[in-house]
């Protein structure tokens, strides 16, 4: 394994979040009864013609700008000709020689903790095309059914250079791309519904060899786990083949999630000749400077810029900044929390959003956008920790109370439930004295050198204080009294 280098390139089909189809006025909504969202154009009736959807083009421009690519001033739609029942025209309208987006790059974080590193993945191109319909092979008594609702749904096909060197890099890229397309609002990212699906081109070569090995393309991977499993299996399979003296043949393969294996769909010899040529029904797509500027003006702050700002402005680690910019909703929640708690408390804000809130949301299967605890509430809670009104432990109780709607603000809950921290030295001293008097055995153990006994005494004091005593003050007083 160690003398082999893995080379991976990824092609992603992102379904664009437009209201209507790329070349017709039919709706793109998912889940309707078969063939109820296919108009004359989608059915390819004789005589119908395509008309390009401006919204789909705008999505492509947004993407091009977000990855710092060249948005082509002129691009051309081409016909990819092949016969299949779910392809009503007998050709797919796509882009071939002149795609709408050229080049660009995405910087991704690979791995976690100390082993984390940044990897820049370069993109070859991204082009607009239409999706096909679906063939339904069940429930038709030996026949196949065709559902053309999906036919004509706009897709952006995003193609990388063969830049990735492991399945982890491939998954990190796919996740970053998945986050980005949602971030800029061009794709809903729903992988179960097929809105975001990846093909992986995989090859291996001896380390140090300049030329690439022969690649095989794994089609239609619709989860990050399958992407990783499929690549790992394929890499091992290719290495075994070569080590056993066989050559890799260029092929398209499918991944079977049940067996965890890839199997050949068609070899290069069976590959179609798609007979691409410019679609004479559509004029070249001309994108003006003004149009690009207008789209640029409407773009949100991009994750890469936000991440850098979180590091420089808030002093967060790159890892934290990356986690908080995984989605626009999370970043917005974090920033709104900081706005209440103050920039000097950005670090605890980050921790609360990334750890406590994330865990609670995850447990309930909820999204941050609809979190029962608002950023304002969380910010108010963090303020009360910072000014010593409550301890971290009590804060967790207050958070739980906010989650359950027991009060509108942290202050209200602290007040109503009497959770305010006891910081009065006299009051704490009285509690300490009472505990020391009642727990002579622990005191003796501690004096005999058992450190554990100290913790037991702290616990007793906190219990007597119903958790509200300032832990630092309890510690200090106990130590002082025991030393006396």
């Amino acid at each position, binding site marked *: 394994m160690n003398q082999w280098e893995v080379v991976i390139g990824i092609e992603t089909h992102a379904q664009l979040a437009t209201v209507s189809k790329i070349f017709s006025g039919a709706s793109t909504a998912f889940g309707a009864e078969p063939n109820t969202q296919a108009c*004359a154009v989608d*059915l*390819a*009736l*004789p*005589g*119908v*013609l*395509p*008309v*390009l959807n401006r919204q789909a083009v705008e999505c492509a421009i947004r993407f091009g700008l977000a990855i710092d690519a060249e948005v082509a001033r002129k691009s051309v739609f081409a*016909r990819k*000709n092949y*016969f299949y*029942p779910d392809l*009503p*025209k*007998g*050709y797919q309208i796509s882009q071939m020689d002149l795609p709408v987006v050229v080049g660009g790059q995405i910087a991704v974080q690979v791995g976690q903790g100390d082993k984390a590193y940044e990897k820049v993945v370069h993109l070859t191109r991204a082009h607009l095309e239409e999706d096909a319909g679906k063939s339904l092979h069940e429930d038709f008594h030996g026949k196949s059914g*065709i559902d053309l609702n999906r036919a004509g749904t706009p897709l952006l096909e995003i193609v990388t250079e063969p830049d990735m060197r492991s399945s982890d890099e491939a998954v990190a890229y796919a996740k970053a791309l998945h986050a980005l397309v949602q971030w800029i609002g061009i794709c809903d990212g729903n992988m179960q519904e097929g809105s975001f699906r990846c093909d992986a081109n995989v090859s291996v070569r001896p380390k140090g060899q300049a030329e690439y090995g022969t690649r095989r393309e794994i089609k239609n991977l619709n989860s990050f786990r399958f992407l990783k499993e499929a690549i790992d299996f394929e890499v091992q399979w290719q290495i075994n083949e070569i080590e056993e003296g066989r050559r890799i043949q260029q092929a398209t393969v499918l991944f079977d999630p049940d067996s965890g294996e890839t199997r050949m769909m068609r070899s290069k010899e069976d590959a179609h*000749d798609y*007979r*691409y*040529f410019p679609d*004479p*029904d*559509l*004029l070249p797509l001309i994108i003006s400077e003004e149009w690009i500027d207008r789209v640029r003006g409407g773009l949100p702050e991009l994750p890469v810029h936000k991440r850098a700002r979180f590091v420089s402005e808030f002093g967060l680690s790159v890892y934290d900044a990356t986690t908080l910019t995984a989605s626009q909703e999370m970043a917005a929640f974090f920033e709104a929390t900081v706005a209440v708690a103050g920039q000097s408390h950005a670090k605890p804000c980050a921790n609360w959003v990334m750890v406590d809130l994330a865990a609670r949301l995850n447990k309930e299967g909820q999204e941050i956008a609809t979190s029962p605890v608002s950023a304002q509430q969380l910010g108010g809670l963090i303020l009360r920790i910072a000014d010593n009104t409550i301890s971290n432990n009590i804060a967790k109780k207050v958070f739980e109370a906010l989650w359950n709607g027991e009060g509108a603000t942290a202050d209200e809950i602290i007040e109503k439930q009497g959770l305010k921290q006891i910081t009065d030295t006299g009051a704490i001293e009285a509690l300490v004295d009472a505990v020391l008097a009642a727990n002579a055995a622990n005191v003796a153990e501690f004096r005999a050198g058992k450190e554990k006994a100290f913790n037991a005494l702290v616990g007793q004091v906190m219990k007597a204080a119903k958790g509200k005593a300032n832990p630092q003050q309890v510690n200090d007083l106990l130590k002082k009294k025991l030393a006396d």
Partner: protein
Amino acid sequence: MINASLKQLSQALAAKQISSLELTQLFVDRIARLNPTLNAFITIDAEKSLAAARAADVRIAAGTAGRLTGIPIAQKDIFCAEGWRTTCGSKMLANFVSPYDATVIRKMESEAGLVSLGKTNMDEFAMGSSNETSFFGPVRNPWDTERVPGGSSGGSAVAVAARLAPAATGTDTGGSIRQPAALCNLTGLKPTYGVVSRYGMIAFASSLDQAGPMAASAEDCALLLNSMAGFDERDSTSLERPAEDYSRDLEKPLAGLRIGLPKEFFGEGCDAAVMAAVRAALAEYEKLGATTVEVSLPNSHLSVAAYYVIAPAEASSNLSRFDGVRYGFRAEDYGNLDDMYMKSRAQGFGAEVKRRIMIGAYVLSHGYYDAYYLQAQRIRRLIANDFVEAFKFCDVIMGPTSPSTAFKLGEKAADPVQMYLSDIYTIAVNLAGLPGMSVPCGFVGGLPVGLQLIGNYFAEARLLNAAHRYQQATDWHLRRPLGLG
């Protein structure tokens, strides 16, 4: 009334001298009597036509009628018309009833109020120059029923020439309006590419196809084109221009008109008697005050070759939708999916269509694309540039429409290349996207000869003017075939 012009019919309807219902009934009866011999129509539906006529009469009575409301016309069977069987001359669509209207149909029938008499015969998928490739049998030329009417709009041409309809629509990809107009003594106009919407017009070669009027005179063509043309947001290649009245310049004097005569159109390859008729027409133009100047279209000899790469390439892809899956013909007794495709397409398409699909697939295939398709596109640009150069020296280009008069049924059917050469003078106009017309200019052995007029982009009104003034001075266009009864 049978021989009346659109203008006369319009006036008669407005003056209530005749109702649309009476007028339509006249033509319905004439079709019933003569169509069995001529085979100009594939589909007629008298009930539908008469219902449309009644609706037109309501509009006329209500005072909401347009100029053409209530006038019957024939529609080429390439236009999808809601509720009408729309076959494109093919077995593949012999059972296809369109659920929607082409933009041309909507504009002419729903908006202008024209009354459809039926769907006219044509070469299968508009591929042919004689109407012999139709699945529904050949159309017979009323000037000699042993001869072809030309194609592909042969049914429309014969419907008008035999007065089964006052006027008709046609489509022209390489000459399919102009050549049958020439062979049947009609006036036909192919507009600038993009003037008439292609939405709902079954595609043969998308970058060349253009619909236009076929009628007895330039004046009728102008009136008809007014009802057909206009920007359509459903057709991305339709041109966004202000609406025009194509009859506005009809009466303009021709003094000072510069006529360009391409030397390539006056050399070999044309029947001498046809050429003599064309030259006589040019002499008539000079009498009307026009001057002639020799121009050159140096690449025009490449037009047929380039056309027979580009048109089949586009057709091979356009016709892929006819796969037997969703509508149209599906073979019986197929095994698997590939078998269904192959049998349905092998049985559903005729020989000429299959020939062009094969040529098209070949020229687009890997390894041949550059040598054929790209090269043909380069030639296409050269041909368009030739015209741009020529129009620096003239206003209208003239020459023969077709190198011969109507040929005998079967005469060229076995020789595709001879058939393709029927369009030698018309094809370059489609490649360049220019407007072109054919106008009757004489007879050879009792058969009509057509004069071709080619204009610069958007010069339809100028062409119609030149044709109309000629028709004021001559009566070729008024001659009717005898012996039809």
